[in-house]
Every structure is written in structure tokens, then in C-alpha cells.
């Protein structure tokens, strides 16, 4: 440093805050430059993210820990093996504004065992399973509604009937509403599993990872 230590020190000075030049723009809470006059809250949307991962111990803990720590709003998470030994597919349903969805994908990508991440945006094939246990007082009616939803009875006794329904999220939600009348005792839902539709590949990975 070339500062001369013998000079008289006066302390900090300069124009006060209200005398300074000011910028004209503004950013929103997401750091995006916006028109200062229009203050729009970013809209959240629900989407499916699919991750193709190496099947190593702890991978699920890492993924769920990441979503928790970074406060991503997660609706469901499923994991299961794929056609390739040693690799699993994790399907996440999240609800976030666009920047949050982008961040979630990027943060997932930073995890070493994660080989491919994408959002399944264009009309994916998605499916969920629910198991419903209801009171067994009206077996005929339960049977009729189960058939309406292409479901199946798994267990029937004098006091309870347990059925399974599969389908997309809204179908499962509707079915649960419909069974409400019988008195639902317990529900187990799997969360959604999903693939890209038709020829489109869900995970584009090179040969090393198949």
C-alpha cells in the first residue's frame, strides 16, 4: 500500500445517501429485472421431473435432503429400478415458479450419482397407484365404483373392503372423492411414476450408463 500514514485522517466523507445518483430500474425477488410499476408475483406450476440415477446407497437420501434443504415444494417422489442394472429412475412432482423449477433441475444435476435430469413437460405418460380401505357395509356399491374407475378389490371382509385404483393424479383424486361416502379408513398412495410419451426418450444417456 502506498498510503502515507502521516496524513491527517478525517474519517469517511462524501455525499449523503439522498444526494446520490439513483438507478431507474428494479428487480423482483427472483432477481429478474422488472418494470417497477408492475409488481407481479411469479406463478407456481406443477410439473414432473424425472432423474436417471446410479443406484448407489444413499442416493434417495441425497435427493430428498437436497429438496428439503433448498426448500423446493415437493408433492411426491417415487424411485424404482430401470431396465438397466445398477440404475434407478426417480420421479418427482414439484410445484414451483419457473426459476424454482430450473434451480431444482440444476441442483439435482450437481449430485454425482445423478446422470440425467429433465422436466417431462409435454404431456407425459404418468401413473399412480392408490390403495383404499373403506367400510364394508355396502359391498355392491363399493364394487360398482371400483369398476367405474377400472380398479380392483384386493381384500374384502365383513367390516372392510380394500381396493386399488391406478391412473393419473386427477383420476386418483376423483376416485378418493367418490369413495368418501363409504367412510375411508386408510389410504396409501405411491406418488407418480412417469415416462415421456411415444418415441421420445425419458433419459438420454450414453452407453456407459445403460
Amino acid at each position: 500500500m502506498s498510503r502515507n500514514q502521516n496524513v491527517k485522517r478525517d474519517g469517511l466523507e462524501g455525499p449523503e445517501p439522498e444526494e446520490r445518483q439513483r438507478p431507474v430500474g428494479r428487480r423482483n425477488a427472483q432477481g429478474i429485472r422488472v418494470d417497477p410499476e408492475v409488481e407481479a408475483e411469479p406463478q407456481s406450476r406443477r410439473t414432473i421431473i424425472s432423474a436417471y440415477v446410479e443406484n448407489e446407497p444413499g442416493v434417495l437420501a441425497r435427493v430428498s435432503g437436497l429438496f428439503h434443504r433448498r426448500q423446493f415444494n415437493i408433492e411426491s417422489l417415487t424411485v424404482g429400478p430401470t431396465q438397466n442394472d445398477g440404475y434407478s429412475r426417480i420421479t418427482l412432482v414439484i410445484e414451483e415458479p419457473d426459476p424454482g423449477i430450473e434451480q431444482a433441475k440444476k441442483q439435482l444435476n450437481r449430485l454425482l450419482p445423478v446422470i440425467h435430469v429433465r422436466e417431462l413437460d409435454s404431456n407425459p405418460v404418468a401413473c399412480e397407484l392408490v390403495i383404499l380401505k373403506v367400510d364394508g357395509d355396502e359391498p355392491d356399491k363399493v364394487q360398482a365404483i371400483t369398476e367405474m374407475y377400472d380398479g380392483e378389490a384386493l381384500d374384502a371382509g365383513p367390516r372392510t373392503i380394500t381396493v386399488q385404483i391406478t391412473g393419473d393424479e386427477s383420476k386418483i383424486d376423483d376416485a378418493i372423492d367418490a369413495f368418501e361416502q363409504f367412510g375411508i379408513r386408510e389410504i396409501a398412495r405411491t406418488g407418480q411414476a412417469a415416462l415421456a410419451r411415444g418415441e421420445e426418450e425419458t433419459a438420454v444417456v450414453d452407453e456407459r450408463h445403460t
Partner: protein
Amino acid sequence: MSGEQKQAPADATDTTPKPIETGADAVVRALENAGVEHLFGVQGGAIMPVYDALYHSEMHHITMAHEQGASHAADAYGIVSGEPGICLATSGPGATNLVTGLADSNMDSDPVVALTGQVPTDFVGSDAFQETDTVGVTGPVTKANFFADDSRTVGRDVGTAFALAEHGRQGPTLVDLPKDVTNGPAEEDPGEPRTPTTYNPPETAAPDAVAEAAVALAAADKPLILAGGGVIKAEACEELRSFAIEHEIPVVTTMPGIGSFPEDHELSLEMAGMHGTGYANMAITMTDCMLAIGTRFDDRLTGGIETFAPDAEIIHVDIDPAEVSKNIEADYPLIGDAKAVLTQLQTAMDRSPSADEWREQCQQWKAEYPMDYAAPEDEPIKPQYVVEAYDLATDDDTIVTTGVGQHQMWACQYWSYTEPRTWVSSHGLGTMGYGLPAAIGAKVAAPDQDVVCFDGDGSFLMTCQELSVAVRENLDITVVVLNNAAIGMVRQWQDAFFGERHMASEYPWVPEFDKLAEAFGAAGFRVDTYDELGDAVEESLAYDGPSVVDVHIDPEENVYPMVPSGGDNGLFALAEDQL
């Protein structure tokens, strides 16, 4: 002061190379293959096989007083050398004591490899003696971590951890080493460190994106470069300097970016953010095009997001895509290594921005808001003056380390940094106690450079036991305690935001640090007057070994300029009444 020097005990280490027989041998060979020369650690049950294998190695192990010290020393070693620093600890408390340091390295993307002992595999999950789920605990604060499950591959795990710490966006990695794995059989040399095939950090940015960014920058009226720590990590300081100078673009830095651009250059506006210079904060607020390189737009830099560079198009260069548009949206994302992308940008720029007016404006801000402090003729001593005195008395390549608090900010503001890797501090985590162990790591990494640690009395008390290590290793470091008998930064905030209620921030009694130093076998100095200061600066720097200079400073001195948390950088306060 005591002039006596402790002799390092006669070293009985047998250094005949040993063939690989166990997992521990493979671990040690993997480190040797990586070119490691120094290790920082503390012994203990579960890591003993690794230490036993080290007995035959030429690598130099430095026994620290506390594992936190080992993790900070390794971190500073990583900052100064650019190569991963290595720390070792046993299972359980040894491993958990590393956590603060790993979190610190993770926030600052510093290259560190931690090796932790673990209970034997069969005992894992049984709550065995000194068992902790180290991989679970350290997962969120490491770039990657591994549980070694096979003595025959453990050497490669260590190599992988080393390569991952060093390549791409740097960071801390950890390998947990169960005792049966390090004791188990192995024969193969683990080879050179290699990143896994799934790890492919970007090198150059997309050429189209670079071209667009170059057009935007060349068209700017008020261009500004924001240089972050990534510039230093990527060894891109030369590229940054020639780019900024050729195109005459003013440069501000983040705190980790200090040293990337010489602060005595006329284009330098020094550090921006909470305690940045007035001129840096004016420039960062008024710019219309910011080239931000290797920065994650931390809130201490940005202040409130809404008012951060609100008129600027942002060109963001970063090796980690997740940092781009995380806090501040990038208009021109350039994903790649800072050195490579700066070279691309240089080629793509066919003209410089015409920004004479802007440059004049920046010079005017420099004249309007000079960094200064009110120094009366009389005592108490002003801390800023102490920082300047050491800066004047030392070479440009002197390394500065710090604790966390006011003293850290004065060390930023009143020392003029001109070289990369000379500013070694705890930025993102803000870890009190970092300074002294970091000085040890820095000195081990750069034995030919002077190392000065500016510490606070509070910070020094957190890790001062590491003085024993500096004495044992006879490390020539100078610790300057800017002693205000308070955890001053907290007291400053209480003055400003908590009605001057000094709850738990003032020390009614502080140890005599000069005597404490002497008890450890270091040289101790006490300074109360400006006259004493001159001598103490000279003698402490001349002393061949660790010294501690306890400078009793003005306890009322506060750090300004200041942007309150979440505030508007352009409205920085020059004094408390402007907050």
C-alpha cells in the same frame, strides 16, 4: 517476550517405501500419487491404521490441536496452493469436529479432502463407540462424499475424492474409512486421481452465447466487471487483467475475489457489498452492463435483490450452471471455466465499449468517497492504522488471514491486495476462529511468503490452542489481535439495530494475549500506544517463529461504509446516523 524456541521432537519416522498390503497403504499411496506433501490432522482409534501407514511415507503430517484447526489449515492450504488441502480425523467426535471447516470450504468452493476413520463395517448402525453417520452428517456440506466399503478399492476412492475436490467447481470432499477396510487386504497401486465418468464440468461456453455477450458488453455505456473468487480458482487473473485493461473496464471484486485484480490499479474500485467501498457500491448500482465472473451473488454482496444493479444487463460466467440465475437472473449466461471463457470473450470482442464518461464518473466517486477513518493524535489506537502499518512494512506477496468480525473488514478495507491467493478468509460461512489455523495452513503452503493473521479477540479465543502447533512446527507467522474487548461486530449491530443494548457482546475481562503466547512458547507483544506499535510491527515481523501482537484498539470503532442486510448498495451509510 520469550526468545526461546521449542525444538521439534526428533522424528523417528521410517521412510523406506512400503509395498501396498492393506487398504491404509493404498490410501497413503493414493495421496502420494496425487502429489500431496502435507497433511493436517488428529489421531484416534478408527483412523489409526491410516496413520500407521503414514509412518512409512515422506509426506509431512502436522498434528493439530483440534480437528476444526485441521480443516481450516487444509482449507487455507487449498486457497494458497490451489491444490486440495488434506485433513484427517478419527470417527465420531473427530469427524464432527471437521464439520465447521468442511461447511466453510463448501461455501467458498475451496479444495479440501477429508479422510475420516469409521467403526468397522460390521459395527456400522449399532451405535458403536465413536460411531457417527459421517457421510450423512457431511453430505450437505461437501461437494461429494463416499463411504469406502472395500479395502481393494479404497485407494481409488481417495483418488476420486482428490480429483473431485480439485476439478470443476472446487470444493471439499470426504472419504469415510471403516477400520476393517483400512486394515483389510489390498495389493494394487490406486493410480493417479481421476474424476468419475459421470462428472463432466463444462470447459468453454457456447460460442453463440459468447458472441452475443461480447456485443452487449461492447455496446455498454457503463460497463463494469465483477470479479469473484472463481477468477482466482480458475487461475484466470492474468486473463482478467489483460481483458479489463485492454477494454478499460472498471473492476469491482467480491470478498473472495480480492486479489484477482490489483487494488492499486486505477481501474480497480476494490470490494463491493456490505462493507465495500463507496465507489464500488456506486458503480455496482449504476452500471448498465455487468460482466460477473465466478461469483454466486451472495447476499452480502448484493444487499437487497430488488435494488442490485437494477439497470444492468448481466453477463454471468460460471463453471456451475446452478449458480447462473440462482439469485440474479443472467441475461447472458456463459457456462464454462473462467479462464477459458475470458479467452473466448477476448477473441469475440471486436471493439471496446466507449465509456469515457463512465470511467470519469468512477474516478469521481473514488475522489468523493475515499476510504478513510478519523484518527486523533492520541490513543486509543485505530485498528485501521494497525492494518496499514503492517501493509507498509511487508512485501506485496504477504498473505493475510483473518477471523470473522470487524477486524476482518478492516483487513479487507485498509490493506491493498495486488496478488491472487494472498487474501485468505472465511467468506460465505463467516467462521470465527478461522484466522490462526488458516495462517498455519497458508505458511505450510507458502513457506517463503510472510503470513499475517488479523484476528479479533473473540475469534482468537476460539482456536488459539493452535499456537501450540505453530510453535512446534516453528512457523513464522504473525498474529495481530485487534483487541477491542468485545465481539465487536455484534456490538456494532447492537449499536445500530438493537438500541445499544450490549447483550453478551462485551468481555468484562480478556486474557493477556502476549502472556498467553509466551505460555505457548511463541513471542508475545502488547501494544497500547502508537509509539509501541511501530516497534512491535518491526519486531514481530523480524521474529523467526510465531508471534502474537495484542493491540488494544479503540473499543468504540465501527466498520463503515455499511449497507445494512438486505439494503440498497447505492444507499450505503458512511456513519451510523445514515443507516
